[in-house]
């Protein structure tokens, strides 16, 4: 094999990782200081948290096709497990953050596995409802002062651990003494979140290209066929739930650590549903799509802010002021509406999410760019989900032989 320059995609990845590695220091450099500040570091830290959480959700919903509206409940469980361990220790011993987060991940993973069992009998909207029930029930349970069993005989004061309605306030995380001069609190947190996030992303990427990942996709695309091919349906469905629980638990644990505060209201129904919206916008069954989904979650508020500012600056609206039922000032209060319209337009024209759009652009790129890739029809073709399938090359070959009119998506 002759040595050539690394391919552009590899270069891009290296560049991306390099930026991720030095990001919290960038704002101290002359050029970057004009648009970066410690708050951006916080936002990107949040991005890392969302990335972990959404990777789990995308494994479950995107890859194996199990819709979960209650994913935030799993995140909350992870957050509480880690928070309780960090604030109260375990059997009288202090628990280091890494152990607490890992324990949160494993506990939530186990919980996910258990939740997977009843989910075996449900699919589609029915599964959505069942998972939705989790996010309705959990905050109320977390708010309980105590739980009684056997007719008041046994009374467990759970608020002693969970803090009840008040939630748990943790000590603000500090960098270790030896590194105190090198990193600020914010930068330390960034690395504490970003290192696991990169590891988990690599894990997810590997996983989706393994036997397990292919089994997930097979289950999603054709359950019966998958079963006939020898995929153990029960095991893989429960594994999907367990894995997404693992990711949710680690993400939740890091969330509690990063915020130093967790309360039953932190993860509510709207957050849970927005998470599903985010992975669809980013791109289902795509690690890259999940990256965009996490960006969406981290910068969503800012995007809405910018949109409502933008709308106020449209001059024609101020001319219309007397005729509209609202004044331009009211657009502050119509933020939800302002942001739902682009959302709808986007999902109509880019059902594959951002990742789908990028593949589409990639497919239409000049041939030198296409070199080494599976051949797909050009610009005019709709996005064909090839990248989302178990064996993209084989499927592309099959699709090519078919009449283009038949190409329907699942």
């Amino acid at each position: 094999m002759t040595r050539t320059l690394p391919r552009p995609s590899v270069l891009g990845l290296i560049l991306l990782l390099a930026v991720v590695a030095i990001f919290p220091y960038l704002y101290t450099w002359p050029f970057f200081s004009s648009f970066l500040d410690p708050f951006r570091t916080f936002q990107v830290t949040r991005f890392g948290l969302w990335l972990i959480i959404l990777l789990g959700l995308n494994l479950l919903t995107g890859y194996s096709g199990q819709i979960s509206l209650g994913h935030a409940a799993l995140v909350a469980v992870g957050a509480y497990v880690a928070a309780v361990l960090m604030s109260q220790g375990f059997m009288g011993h202090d628990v280091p953050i890494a152990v607490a987060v890992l324990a949160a991940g494993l506990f939530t993973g186990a919980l996910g596995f258990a939740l997977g069992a009843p989910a075996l009998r449900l699919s589609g909207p029915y599964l959505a409802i069942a998972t939705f029930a989790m996010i309705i029930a959990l905050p109320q349970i977390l708010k309980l002062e105590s739980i009684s069993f056997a007719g008041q005989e046994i009374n467990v004061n759970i608020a002693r651990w969970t803090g009840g309605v008040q939630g748990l306030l943790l000590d603000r995380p500090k960098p270790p003494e030896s590194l105190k001069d090198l990193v600020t609190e914010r930068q330390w947190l960034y690395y504490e979140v970003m290192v696991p996030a990169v590891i988990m992303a690599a894990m997810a990427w590997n996983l989706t290209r393994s036997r397990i990942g292919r089994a997930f996709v097979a289950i999603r695309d054709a359950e019966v066929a998958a079963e006939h091919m020898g995929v153990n349906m029960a095991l893989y469905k429960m594994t999907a739930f367990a894995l997404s629980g693992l990711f949710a638990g680690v993400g939740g644990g890091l969330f509690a650590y990063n915020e130093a505060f967790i309360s039953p209201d932190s993860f509510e129904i709207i957050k849970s549903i927005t998470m599903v919206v985010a992975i669809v916008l980013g791109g289902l069954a795509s690690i890259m799509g999940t990256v965009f989904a996490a960006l969406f979650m981290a910068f969503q508020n800012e995007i809405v802010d910018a949109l409502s500012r933008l709308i106020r600056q449209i001059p024609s609206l101020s001319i219309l002021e007397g005729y509209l039922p609202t004044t331009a000032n009211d657009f502050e209060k119509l933020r939800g509406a302002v942001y739902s319209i682009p959302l709808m337009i986007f999902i109509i024209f880019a059902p594959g999410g951002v990742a789908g759009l990028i593949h589409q652009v990639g497919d239409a790129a000049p041939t030198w760019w296409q070199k080494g890739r599976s051949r797909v029809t050009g610009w005019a073709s709709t996005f064909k989900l090839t990248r989302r399938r178990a064996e993209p090359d084989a499927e592309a070959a099959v699709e090519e032989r078919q009449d283009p009119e038949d190409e329907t998506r699942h």
Partner: protein
Amino acid sequence: MLRRFPRAFLLAAILIGGLVLLSCGGGEKTAETPVTTQPAGTSTPGAEKVPGVTDTEIVLGTHFPLSQNPAAAYAPIADGMRAYFEYVNSQGGVYGRKIKFIVGDDHFNPADAVEVVRKLVEQDGIFALVGGLGDAPHAAVYKYLEENGVPDMFISGGLDKWTEPLARTRFQGNPNYGTEGRMLAKYLVENYNGKKLGLLLENDEFGENGKKAVLEGIKDSDIKVVAEERYETTQWDVTAQTQRLKAANPDVILAYAVPPPAASLVKAARETLHWDVPIVVTGVVVTDIFIQLAGAQNAEGVVSVVFGKQIYQTDDPGVQRNFQIMKDFGHGVEPSNFTLYGIFIAEMMVKALENAGPNLTRDSLIDGAESIRDWCCLTCPLPVNMSPTDHRPCEMEVYNKVENGKWVTFGEPVIFESTPGKAIGCKGPDEPIYASEGE
């Protein structure tokens, strides 16, 4: 492994880079004050630059629910605050400095409040946070503000923990639920001793705190709690809870709820269940929206407590000024008890800024707030007093009830002022009555 990496990742990298650049560059360029996130106490006054303060501007911020949650009904409070700050700006500002007021939307969610407040502090570089609303969201940020030395002025919430223990940088806006609960308990004991009590509580710290205070107040009486129902913060309709309350057959109901569910309670009891049980509610409910939602007829006779004048007292010069300010600077927002409360908070903030003097620092602001004495705001029935050990501006309450579709006060005000002032009352805005002339 890397060999199989899709080229699309390069595109992705470029796109992400572009997005980051866009979102960073597209932001507001006005608040470019570099913020040093130094911990409290390490700042050396004098030569050091004060965050959010220039010779011409003071940047203030707050967090409010503006969307995604029923609590967005509170948004007019922020409108009232903005209107008053604009009014002050039109008068030349405070020592020549105009006030810039930034409202962040926290959706009444603690996690979002964290993001919004950090943005305000670290990116917008606010000088102080004013009137941040909501016990649940604020609980997620108050330690952060305290540790970073950001003044946390006049929180729109009443948890006891805002001022107990006392933090130098934190001030309360509402009377705390502890004192309010004692007052409501006093009313119950005087009128319903020996009877059965039913509770409707918001299922969070607000409801829990209120319940504790009321139970504390009635513990020596013969009042028996026969039912306790809760609702979630995302809920408006409490008909089911009301039905269960009725099944327990209490003689009186006490509700620690925000206006919409409280209105639902009243409406369900009167209209759906034809149940004329007396209802007592927390002072949080004393708003126009409660009466509108419940219907004036249903709300008739509901009892609560209040700590200031109200928007219906249209003969009052202070209330008239409120109307004028909202007309001139409200951008079309209707005056209500919410805007009135917002104006009260903003007014108190401006007073603290004035007391702080021309050399404004965070320290001098707190000194300025602590030195507010015998001060009558536009709608204060009694003067406001604060001190280094007293960070609660509102330490009086008076009973009120709904009469002919309006909240009307009754009985003598109950005062638990911990900072004795010289004035004994308020004649009007900035017109304290002193003992000698009052007699």
